C-alpha cells in the first residue's frame, strides 16, 4: 500500500451532504476487473453532461462547467473538502480507487459512512474527520481564496492552513501505523496465523455444522 506521511495540495470544495458512492463512481464503471483507471470517471454524472460508458475516451465529452473539479482554480486538487455522511451507499471500493486514481490523497468531512471510511485506509487515502464548524470554516476559507492549499500531517494528526492555523484530528493507532509505513494488513494478520488456527479448532468443536458443509 502507498504510504501517507505528509501531503500539501489544493483543496476542492464539494458542498453537499450525503455524497453517495453511486455519485462518486457510477455503476457502469464497476464492470472493470482492475483496480486502476477509474479517475476519468470520478463523479461522472456531476462532471460530464452526457452519460459515460466504460472504456470510453473522456477527453472529448461535454463537461459540466459548474462542477467544482472542472473549474480552473481547482485543477490538480488533491484534497477533497466535503460535508456530512460522505461515501454513503454501497461497499464498492471503486469509490476510493477512483478518488485515488484522480489524484486525491485525503478527504476532509465531518462524518463518513462506515464502509467507505474503512475502504479508504486500505488504499492510502486518508479520510479526515473535523467538526462541522471546522469544516464550515474551511469551506469559507476556500470560497475566499479559491485554489488554496492545505497541508495534512498524519504523524502529528494535524491539518494546517496557509495562515498557519492548525486543525487536529483523531485516527486509530493501527490505521495510522499502516498508512505511515505503507503496510499490507494481510501480512500483519498472517503473523497471527497460530491464533487463527487455535480459534478455528475451538470453533470446529463448538459449531461443527459451520465446517465442511459447503462443497
Amino acid at each position, binding site marked *: 500500500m502507498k504510504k501517507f506521511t505528509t501531503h500539501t495540495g489544493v483543496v476542492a470544495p464539494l458542498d*453537499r*451532504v*450525503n455524497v*453517495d458512492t*453511486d*455519485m462518486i463512481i*457510477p*455503476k*457502469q464503471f*464497476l*464492470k*472493470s*476487473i*482492475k*483496480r486502476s483507471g477509474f479517475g476519468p470517471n470520478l463523479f461522472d*454524472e456531476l462532471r460530464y453532461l452526457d*452519460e459515460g460508458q*466504460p*472504456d470510453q475516451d473522456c477527453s472529448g465529452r461535454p463537461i459540466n462547467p459548474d462542477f467544482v473539479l472542472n473549474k480552473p482554480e481547482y485543477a490538480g486538487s488533491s484534497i477533497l473538502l466535503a460535508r*456530512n*455522511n460522505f461515501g*454513503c*451507499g*454501497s*461497499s*464498492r*471500493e471503486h469509490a*476510493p480507487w477512483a478518488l485515488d486514481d484522480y489524484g486525491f490523497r485525503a478527504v476532509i468531512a465531518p*462524518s463518513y*459512512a*462506515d*464502509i467507505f471510511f*474503512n*475502504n479508504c485506509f*486500505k*488504499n492510502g487515502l486518508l479520510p479526515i474527520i473535523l467538526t462541522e464548524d471546522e469544516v464550515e470554516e474551511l469551506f469559507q476559507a476556500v470560497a475566499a481564496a479559491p485554489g488554496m492549499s492545505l497541508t495534512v500531517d498524519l504523524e502529528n494528526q494535524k491539518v494546517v492552513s496557509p495562515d498557519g492555523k492548525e486543525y487536529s484530528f483523531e485516527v*486509530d*493507532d*493501527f490505521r495510522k501505523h499502516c498508512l505511515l509505513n505503507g503496510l*499490507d*494488513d*494481510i501480512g500483519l*494478520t*498472517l503473523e*497471527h496465523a497460530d*491464533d*487463527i488456527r487455535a*480459534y*478455528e479448532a475451538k*470453533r470446529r468443536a*463448538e*459449531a*461443527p*455444522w*459451520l*465446517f*465442511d*458443509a*459447503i*462443497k
Partner: protein
Amino acid sequence: MAGKTLYDKLWDAHLVRQNEDGSSLIYIDRQILHEVTSPQAFEGLRMAGRKPWRIDANLATPDHNVPTTERAGGVDQIVDPVSRIQVKTLDENCDEYGIVEFKMLDERQGIVHVVGPEQGMTLPGSTVVCGDSHTSTHGAFGALAHGIGTSEVEHVLATQCLIAKKMKNLLIKVEGDLGVGVTAKDVVLHVIGVIGTAGGTGFAMEFGGSAIRSLSVEGRMTICNMAIEAGARVGLVAVDDKTIEYFKGRPFSPTADQWEAAVANWKNLVSDDDAQFDKVVEINAADIKPQVTWGTSPEMVVAVDGTVPNPANAKDADEANSITRALEYMGLNADQAITDIKLDRVFIGSCTNSRIEDMRAAAAVVKGRKVASTVKQALVVPGSGLVKAQAEAEGLDKIFVEAGLEWREPGCSMCLAMNPDKLGNGEHCASTSNRNFEGRQGFGGRTHLVSPAMAAAAAITGHFVDVRDFELNS
C-alpha cells in the same frame, strides 16, 4: 454485570485476538462472492502468492451483471462484453480455487442475499461477509453480517478473519400491530425517515419489539437489508422459533445428528433482558402507513397519503438546499400529492424484495387487473432460480404476465442497472429496491422506493395509490 446484547454475544464468540493497538481480529464463518467486487481480490491473492485459507467457507454466484431475459446461451451470450468478462472471471476464479459457485445456468443462481439464507449457508450465530453493503440482510437470522470492500474480501480469503473495531449497540423497538397493507418495507422506510440516513452510522442496529417478532423471516430480511440505508453496517433480529423453522432441511443446514446441538446454541442468540444499548429508538407500529420516497436519499420518504415537502418549511438552510436539489432532480413540485406522481416503469425485485413472499404480495394486487397503458414497462425479477421455480409452481408468473408485467430470470437487475434493465433519462419508477440515489437505476432515472404491494398497485393505476384502498382478488 449487565447482560449482553445479541451483537455483544456474536462479537465475543468470534473474537480471535485483541491487538495492543485496540484493533481486533474477528473470525469469519462465511463469505459470499459475486462478480463485481471479487476479481481484484483474487488478483491480489495471486500477486502476493497466497492461497485461500478455507475454501469451504465460501460460496459464489453472479448476480449484478447477469441479464434477466432469456439466457439459455449462458455466459457467452451476455451481450455487453465488459459484463461478460466480469462474470467469466468469477467462474474462472472459482474453478481455479475449487470454490462452490452457482453459475448463471444453475437453478440455484440468484442474488447473493437471497441465495445465502435459501441454501442454509447463512446460519444463526455465524459471521457472514460479502463485498456488498446489503449483506446486513443476513442479520435477520441472528447472524453477524455486514458488507466489506474488495481489500477486505481479499483479507478474508487469505486469513478467514477481518481486522475490526467493535460497533456500538442501537435498538430499534417497534411495538404494536402493523396495519393491514403495511409491510416490512414500510417499517424500515419509516425508521430511516425517523433516524435519517446516517442515524445508524457506527452502530449495530437490532430490530426488536412485537411488530418485528410478528414478521416472517422474509420480512425481517427486508428490514435488515436496509439497515445500511440508515448508516448501520449491521442489522440484527433475535432468533426465535420462526428462525429455527426456516433452516430445517436446507442444503447447507446442520445435518440430522448436529441439528439438536445447533438449535440449542441458536436459542441463546437474543439480547439479554438487562442488556445495555447505547441508544434506543421507540417506534409505534400503528403510526406506520405505506411509504413512498420522493427524493434522492432513502430518508426522503413520506406516507402515501402525504405530500412532497416544501423547502420553505425546512428546519435550516442546508435542509432547504437538499430538498430543492432533490425536487429539481426528481422533477417534482413542492407540496405535490404523492398520489399525483405518475410512473413510467415499475420494478419488483432486488435483494430487498424478491423473495417468494414479495412475489405473492405483488401477484395478489395485480391478479385479474391490467397494467396501466401509460406505464412503459413493469418488471418482476425473482431473487433466485429457486424463488422463480416456486412462484411458477404457484402460478404467479401467469398472473403477472396476464396483467401485463414481464416475468424475468433472477438477478439484481434494475436495482442498480448494471445489466440491460435500466431507466431512461427523467423516467419515474416505482421500485421495491433499496436506493433512490441520483442515477442509481439509470442515467437521469427517478426512483421511488416502495413495498411490492405498493409497486404492484402503482403499475395498475399508473400513479401512486394507497394499496390499502385496493381490494385483493386472491
